[in-house]
Every structure is written in C-alpha cells, then in structure tokens.
C-alpha cells in the first residue's frame, strides 16, 4: 500500500475523479469539431484529393505544412524532458509529464496528416510491404515510428509508480474500469528497492537513447524536402534549421500546455515561476539560433541569385508570399522582445506611473492604425515593397515612435507577469513557426522550374482538417490528464526531499581574499548556494 500526503492527494489525484460542467462542455465542442473534420475527410476520401486546394504545380500544401508543424511540436516534450533529465535540472520535475504527453499526441496528429495527404490511403500498408529504404519518406516512417514507440515508453515509465499510487488510493465510488486500468498500468509496482533501481536505470537509458532519435526525426523531415533538387529546398542547412525550429515551437506548445494544466488543476505551487523562468532561457536560446538559421538560409539565396532559386526568395520578400513571410518575421521579433526585453528592464520602471499596460495599449493602437494606413494603398500595387513609395513619412514616424513607446511601457508589466509574458511569446512563436513551415513548403511548390507559376489557396476541406487535427490534439491531451496526474507525483516528492536536504546543509562561504573588516562578503548571507 503506497501512501500519499493529504495535500498532494487533494490537488493531484482528486480532480481526476471529478469532472465539472466545463470539462464536458469542452469535450463536446472538441468532438463537434472533430466530427466536422471527419465528414470533410470522408468527402475527400470518396471524391478524391481534388476537394483540396492543391493543384499542379502545388502538389503539396497545407497537409504537408501541418505535418511538419505537428511533428515539430512533438519535440517539446521528449527531447526537452530528456535533455533536462540527463543534465539533472531539478526544476524539470513538475513539467516532464506534460512535455512527454505533448510528444505522444503531436506525433499521432502529425502522422495523421500524412494519411490525409495520401491519394490512396487504403494502400498505406504498402509502405511496409513494398517499402524502399532508399526513399526519404521511408526514412521518415522508420524514424517517426521509432520516436513514437520510444516516446510512449518514455512517457509510460514514470507513470508506473503514479499508477500504483492511484491503484492504492483510488477514491470510493470510482468506476471499476479505472481500478482495473490503474492496476494494469502499475504492473504490480510495490515500490521496493529493486523496482526503484530498475525504473531509474530504465528512465536514464531511455532519456539518453531518445535524444538522437528525436534529432533524427525532424532532420529526416527536412531531408524529404532537401533531397529533391527543387529551388529553395536543396539546402544543407535544412536539417539543423528544422530541428531548431521544432524545439522552438515545441517549447511554445509546452508553455501553453503547462499553463493550461496549471490553471485548470490549480497547480500553482507545483509549477512555479521558476519553471517559466528557466524554460524561458532555453526559449530565448532557441529563438536566437532560429534567427541565425533563418538569416543564413535566406542570405545565401539572396546573394547567389540563381535563376531558379531567386524567384522563390523574391516571392517571399516582395511577391505573393510577402504577407506570410513578413508576418512571420515581425511576430518572431515581437516574441523575442517579449522574452528578452523584460530581463533588461530596470526595477525602477515598475514604480513609474507612465509605464503601464493601458498606456502601452493606447500607444500600440495608434501605432497599428498608422501601420494599417501605410499598408492600405500597398494592396493595389503589383508588388508590396515595404520601404519605397509609402505615402507619408509622418505616418511612418508616428508608427515608429508610438510603437516604441508601446513596447517600452509594456515592459514592466511583462517583467512582473512572467507567465503571461511566456504565453504571449508562445502564441507568437507557434503562429510564426506554422508560417515558417508554410513559407518553406508552398513558395517552392508554386515556383517550379518548367511549369507556369501556380497559386495555392487551401480549401475548406484543408482548413476543416487542420481545425479537427488541433481539436484531436487538445482532446487527447484533456482526456489523458483526466486519467493520469498532470504532475509526476513521485518525481516531485523526490525533488522535495532533495530540496530539503540542500536547504538544511550548511555551505561554508568562500574565504575572502580581501582584508578583514570594511568590505561586504561576496555572497549574500541568507541565500542558499546550490
């Protein structure tokens, strides 16, 4: 019989057995969206892929974009959690399970996109019967399958002690199938020493093994594009670029998921600002690397100006994809500002009466209006060159000055509301990363070498299936955390013991080389030193 403290039990276990009205409402809405997607998919299955907006030469479209996007999201989890485990980052404990769950569900939803995209989904098993290992698509099938199985194992292993805990502490009146489920999942866990040793060893091995597999997954996805000779895709930087983008968007998804779990299960004392701050540092690093790769990728194309490649770049810089491209650039910069600038803000600004959210909002509205006024005549032109032929320099100055003031005056608020800041940045990054995938897949498709330049607009079918896929992702996530605690109970408990031991240990201050008396000691007196 495993025991759990009353406090943990109330917060972590009890909500699994009570579902409120909100829960049922959410589930019903999600099911409705998925049903709509199912109807559209059946229609597409019966009529053919002609119901999508894809055409010659844009043979791949939104399904491919979503495939890359969702598989990218999956890197949130296992990779982050594995890296943090391997590097013994103590603060990881409350968020690993959420991260790992994202991986498993994003992989399911991502693989589904490939099935949507097939002209003959009934022949999907030919991939195994007649699979050619020389094809990058098969590399992908192998790599994603390995990652999925590995992630499921890696998600499941830390659940075993928690399932045993649930088995032993299941409340009265819980349905019998749940008792059986936890009993089955606990695999006869009794929590003795041998079992713990085995479990810890397995988790450590899996954490190391899963890292190269995760890296391979998005590398191989990038190679699906990069191994062709199509303009704009045939690039060596694609592998690392995709992996970095995947981790970047994955952390964004993780922030949103952990905040959702934190708010709905009231996990404020488990998932604290410490998790947000530390994960935020990784987020900033990824943002910086992402900017570096994006610049490297586009700069080489711009400098080379090859006849087939340059039109692809031109369509992004000032052609028909300029809107999606510059939106991506602007919101990624905004995300970077939201992440980095609060760290540089002096504390004194928080006492200022000027730097308030309302003031920032007013300035922001003025700035956005000015930018809109600048953009409106642009839509009539053939090209949309942002820098030439603008109507009024005054408007530009207004947009710039008010925009800067808006950003500056929101900073103290962002600094004191780190969780909201992270959510805003994550939203920007998720949209920006989806647009990035779009800007990689579609412009190359519509600018082939020997075919007339095409146009691609996703149809209702594709949008519906995108919505349904997102709904499925949320649905799986919500259901899963109605069965399994969102926070790994035993890991958090273990972390608490480690923290307490550390707190009680007396760390001697380093001896000062300065002359005695007169100067302050180099370290604070009360802060525990890790």
């Amino acid at each position, binding site marked *: 019989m495993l025991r759990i403290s009353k406090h943990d039990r109330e917060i972590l276990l009890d909500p699994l057995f009570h579902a409120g009205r909100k829960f049922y409402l959410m589930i019903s809405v999600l099911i409705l969206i998925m049903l709509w997607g199912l109807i559209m998919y059946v229609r597409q299955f019966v009529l053919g892929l002609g119901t999508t907006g894809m055409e010659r030469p844009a043979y791949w479209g939104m399904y491919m974009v979503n495939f890359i996007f969702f598989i990218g999201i999956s890197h949130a989890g296992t990779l982050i959690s594995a890296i943090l485990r391997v590097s013994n980052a103590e603060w990881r404990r409350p968020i690993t399970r959420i991260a790992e769950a994202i991986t498993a569900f994003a992989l399911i939803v991502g693989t589904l996109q490939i099935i949507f995209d097939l002209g003959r989904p009934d022949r999907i098993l030919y991939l195994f019967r007649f699979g050619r290992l020389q094809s990058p698509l098969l590399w992908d099938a192998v790599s994603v399958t390995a990652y999925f199985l590995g992630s499921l194992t890696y998600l499941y292993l830390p659940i075993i002690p928690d399932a045993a805990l649930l088995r032993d502490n299941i409340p009265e009146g819980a349905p019998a199938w749940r008792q059986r489920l936890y009993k089955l999942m606990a695999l006869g866990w009794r929590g003795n020493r041998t079992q713990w040793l085995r479990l810890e060893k397995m988790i450590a091995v899996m954490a190391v093994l899963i890292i190269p597999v995760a890296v391979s997954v998005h590398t191989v996805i990038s190679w699906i594009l990069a191994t062709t000779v199509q303009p704009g895709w045939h690039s060596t930087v694609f592998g690392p670029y995709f992996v970095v983008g995947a981790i970047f968007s994955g952390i964004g998804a993780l922030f949103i998921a952990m905040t959702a779990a934190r708010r709905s299960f009231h996990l404020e004392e488990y998932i604290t600002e410490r998790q947000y701050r530390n994960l935020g540092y990784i987020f900033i690093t990824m943002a910086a690397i992402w900017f570096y790769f994006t610049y490297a990728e586009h700069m080489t194309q711009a400098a080379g100006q090859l006849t087939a490649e340059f039109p692809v770049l031109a369509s992004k810089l000032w052609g028909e994809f300029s809107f999606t491209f510059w939106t991506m650039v602007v919101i990624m910069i905004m995300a970077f500002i939201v992440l980095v600038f609060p760290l540089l803000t002096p504390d004194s600004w928080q006492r200022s009466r000027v730097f308030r959210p309302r003031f920032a909002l007013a300035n922001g509205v003025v700035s956005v209006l000015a930018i809109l006024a600048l953009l409106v005549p642009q839509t009539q032109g053939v090209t949309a060159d942002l820098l030439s032929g603008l109507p009024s320099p005054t408007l530009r100055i207004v947009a710039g000055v008010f925009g800067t003031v808006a950003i500056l005056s929101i900073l103290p608020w962002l600094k004191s509301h780190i969780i909201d800041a992270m959510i805003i940045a994550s939203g920007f990054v998720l949209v920006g990363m989806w647009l990035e995938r779009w800007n990689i897949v579609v412009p190359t498709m519509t600018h082939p*070498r020997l*075919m007339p330049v095409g146009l691609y607009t996703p149809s209702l079918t594709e949008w519906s299936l995108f919505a349904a896929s997102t709904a499925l992702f949320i649905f799986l996530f919500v259901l899963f955390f109605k069965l399994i605690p969102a926070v790994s109970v035993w890991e958090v408990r273990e972390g608490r013991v480690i923290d307490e031991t550390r707190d009680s240990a007396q760390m001697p201050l380093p001896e000062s080389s300065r002359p005695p008396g007169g100067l302050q000691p180099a370290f604070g007196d009360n802060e525990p030193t890790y």
Partner: protein
Amino acid sequence: MPKWSMVIDLEKCVACQACSIACRFENNTPVVSPELAWEGREMRWNDVFPAPHEESGDYPNTKTHYLTRPCMHCENPPCIKVCPVQATFIDEEGLVRQNYARCIGCRYCTVACPYGVRYFNWFAPEFESPLEQHLNPDKIEGRGDLEGPAVRPKGVVEKCTYCVHRLRKAHARAEAEGRDFRPDEYMPACVQTCTGKARFFGDMNDPDSTVSRLAESDRAFRLLEEVGTHPKTIYLQEGK
C-alpha cells in the same frame, strides 16, 4: 538491350500540339472541365507550352519560343529515388515507368520531378460520351501491376511512358512471327503523329541510329542539365 531515346528538333516544331492530342488518345488521359483546367488539374503527359524566360525581341516584335515536353526518361531520375513503394521505376531499357496498382498517391515524385512531367488523378477520371467509346483497350496488367493506357483509378500518379505498351506489342508481334525484334519497329504515338516531323525516336545504344547521330549534333541540348538528371529526351536548339 536497346536504350530508348527521343530527339526533338525545336527548329522543326510548329507547336501544333498534335503530339499532345495523339498522346491523350493513345494513353486514355482523362479530359477535365475548363474550370478544373483553370485550377491546374489538367493532364497533358505531352505538354506544349511557351518556354519560360525565353521571350525575345522588343514589343511589338516579340517572339515566343515553344517547348514540347514528354517525360525526359532521365538516366538518373529524381522521381524513382524518392518513391517509397517502388511504384515508379526505371526498367532495363531505360524507360521510367509507373505502376498504378502500387502507387499510394503521396505525390513525392511529382514534387521531386524538376520537369513537371508527372500528373496526379485529383478525381476519378471521367470520359464523356463519345470519348468513353473510343478508349484505347491496351494495357499492361499483371499481379499487382497496372501500367500503360489502362484507365487510372483516382488518387494515383501517372506519366509519359514512351508508350511502353507499343513496345510490348512490337515484341509480341516479332515473337509471333518467329523473328528477332528490331528497334525500328517501335515508336511512341507522338513521334508517329508529329506534323513537322520534328520528333525522332530510337535506340541510343546503336551508334548508327538517327537519335545517336542527332544527339552528337552541336545543336543538341538537354533540359535543365544543371540538375544532374541526364535526360534521354534530347532537344535540338532552335535558330542555330
């Protein structure tokens, strides 16, 4: 073993599109409505179109150069390298073929082909009357194998095969008559029909064949040589 190759003399080509029509009737390529064609769903295994970036002269005395384009039947085809199920493959005579019974419709080959010679069946093909009564009955069929002009199911990729069914028929005829097959017994429908006699077809392994000699001409070039596909469809330059 012959290596089949086609030479197209652009100087002689009048862009009449007869090759395109001959191909359509020979290979049962589905006809699509004007609306669908406008959406980019038309299928022309053998396409005739204005060559991109090739307009010359100043307005109003401009000249558009036309290009007629069957499959290049590359010696290093990007399409077969990416196919996950070997639905497209290159046979020992150098023809890049497509098996409709195997294709899973992932369209990776259409994406990988730099020439855009591959087409996808967005819908099930429809033939309006009287077209449906004039379908070519030829097909290559076997266990898990469907090729040639056989009417395609929806959701698979199709492409120019240099009329591989004609090659089969020529072989069968030679065998029935109890003699050896001669390379000049076989030619695709577009070569047979070409109004300007701009197309030549034959065995590249035979140094004395028409195509071998024309391929050595200083007018000979291949489309997009820079992508390293080594096409076996060779063009003769216009105006030289």
